[in-house]
């Protein structure tokens, strides 16, 4: 998944670089207190371990002629926590770029986002959500580790598509590139999930006290604030970029409804409400007013992203208001 310089435009490369630098400074700030502890050698050796694992390319079953390698961010996030995992992945990517020429110097920011930031934080959040609280059992570990690794890899590959699409350096249509890229990484994510599970189960069985050194699997609780931040990031990424890849065609319900003679003619009141809605909706069909909805795919459009983000903001605001109202009523009743 290592991207080369040639696939990115300078703007996208620098934009990704700024996001990556922000993420690294945040993570470095969070683990500064632990810098002198035993976490450092563990980060170093795990970094070397994942580095070596990334050098082993496995050929993908069912897709002849393609191969991929382990990314390992989820493994690191589970063993070290997301902040140390991001720093470790960054170290791996910098060494790969500067010493082994794998991945471009300018594409380093994009690579850190795709293989470090997204899988480490979002994958780790999923892992925490799925293992829940209470003692960690084998039954909880396996599905949680597999899902987190799978989603982490798929998110990273989707981010590659977004970055390449925004850069416009390839002649290959983005839809085809995305289909190939994400398709391959669905398989590769499944394999990554399997490898992550195998290593974690091995450690869980044979080396349980590893859990007691820097990572306390049993007692660590998910911070509610970080959970909220994680879900917000996932929502913003989905709304802001994945919305371009939504199919331009009607969904099942719309298609059924739009077919002639499916519905009875509208009543007069319903007709008036429709006209009113059409007149005053600010962003009809997630697009700017008076701008025809385009049937091309992916529909890279500022207004689609803006509509998605605005939608999330408004939904969260409405839910917050509703929740406030309900709690207020409960307090009044109980008081």
């Amino acid at each position, binding site marked *: 998944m290592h991207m080369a310089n040639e696939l990115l435009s300078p703007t996208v490369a620098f934009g990704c670089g700024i996001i990556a630098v922000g993420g690294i400074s945040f993570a470095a700030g969070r683990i500064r207190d632990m810098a002198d502890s035993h976490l450092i050698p563990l980060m170093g050796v795990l*970094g070397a371990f994942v580095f070596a694992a990334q050098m082993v390319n496995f050929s993908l079953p069912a897709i002849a002629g393609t191969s991929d390698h382990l990314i390992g961010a989820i493994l690191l996030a589970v063993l070290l926590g997301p902040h140390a995992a991001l*720093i470790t992945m960054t170290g791996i990517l910098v060494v790969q770029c500067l010493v082994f020429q794998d991945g471009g110097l300018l594409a380093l920011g994009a690579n850190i986002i795709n293989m470090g930031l997204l899988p480490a934080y979002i994958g780790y959040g999923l892992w925490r959500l799925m293992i829940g609280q209470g003692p960690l059992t084998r039954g909880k570990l396996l599905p949680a580790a597999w899902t987190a690794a799978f989603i982490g890899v798929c998110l990273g590959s989707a981010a590659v598509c977004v970055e390449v699409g925004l850069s416009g350096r390839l002649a290959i249509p983005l839809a085809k590139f995305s289909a190939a890229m994400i398709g391959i990484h669905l398989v590769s994510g499944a394999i990554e999930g399997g490898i992550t599970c195998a290593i974690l189960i091995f450690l869980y069985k044979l080396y349980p006290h590893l859990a007691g050194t820097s990572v306390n699997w049993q007692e660590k609780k998910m911070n509610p604030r970080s959970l909220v931040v994680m879900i917000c990031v996932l929502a913003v990424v989905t709304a802001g970029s994945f919305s371009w890849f939504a199919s331009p065609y009607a969904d099942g319900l719309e298609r059924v409804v739009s077919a002639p003679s499916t519905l009875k003619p509208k009543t007069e009141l319903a007709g008036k409400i429709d006209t009113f809605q059409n007149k005053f909706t600010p962003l009809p069909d997630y697009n700017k007013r008076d701008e025809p909805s385009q049937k091309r795919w992916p529909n890279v459009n500022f207004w689609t992203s803006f509509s998605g983000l605005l939608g999330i903001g408004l939904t969260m605001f409405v839910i917050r208001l509703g929740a406030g109202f309900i709690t207020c009523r409960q307090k009044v009743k109980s008081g």
Partner: protein
Amino acid sequence: MHHHFIDRYAREDSVIHRLDARTKLLTAIVFSAYVVSIPRYEIAPLVPLVIIPFTWITLGKIPWPFVGKHILICSPFILTLAVFNPLFDHSLQHIVLFGSRYTVPGGFLIAINLLVKYLLGITCLIALSSTTRFDHLLLAMKKFRVPRILILQMYFLYRYLFELIEQGHEILRARQARDVGHLTVARRIRSSSGMVGVLFIRSYESALKVFQAMEARLYDGHLRTVEQLQFTRPDLIAFIFTAGFLFFCYLSNT
């Protein structure tokens, strides 16, 4: 830590080796940024840029077969992407070659543009890594205010990396000695997960031992080196030459 293939030429002595690591790192970044900024149908502006990595590699006395081998190892992904471009872009573009005007499909131009940019980027990185020791690169990053924890992590990663690879080879050799090529694929996969686990535990234990030894020698989480980086006159000349050359290329293109 020293590896015979990776940093084989990083400890040699030449004009380029004696330059400050900061100069080389900054030059590589500026050069890559300029290469990437060239539009996708343009090839002519890329050609004169070959001079910079060529000078760097020649003055650094790095053998060309070594450079060629590295380029080939890293090329499969970009080659695959480049090959597919002519299939999708059929727009016609006009180019001028030796005074005559030709019309060629845009996809070919994009493919050549991608490959030339790849060659320039990778030769620049090979030149950087083969003329600069990794600990000097880390010192340069320290001067550029990279977070201490990231530098320490890279230092430890590099320290353990080759040891880990050697341990991995040992485990693989042990399995080959036992199965003599008769192991079924299913058993091979099952034993691989155990091997990876053993490799991890071995390296983790050795890392802890090294760390305890470092703590016993008063390690306090700071990286200290006897050698210090010095920005001298040759650095200034090298940087001005590169920046001036790139600026000249930029002016001649516009």
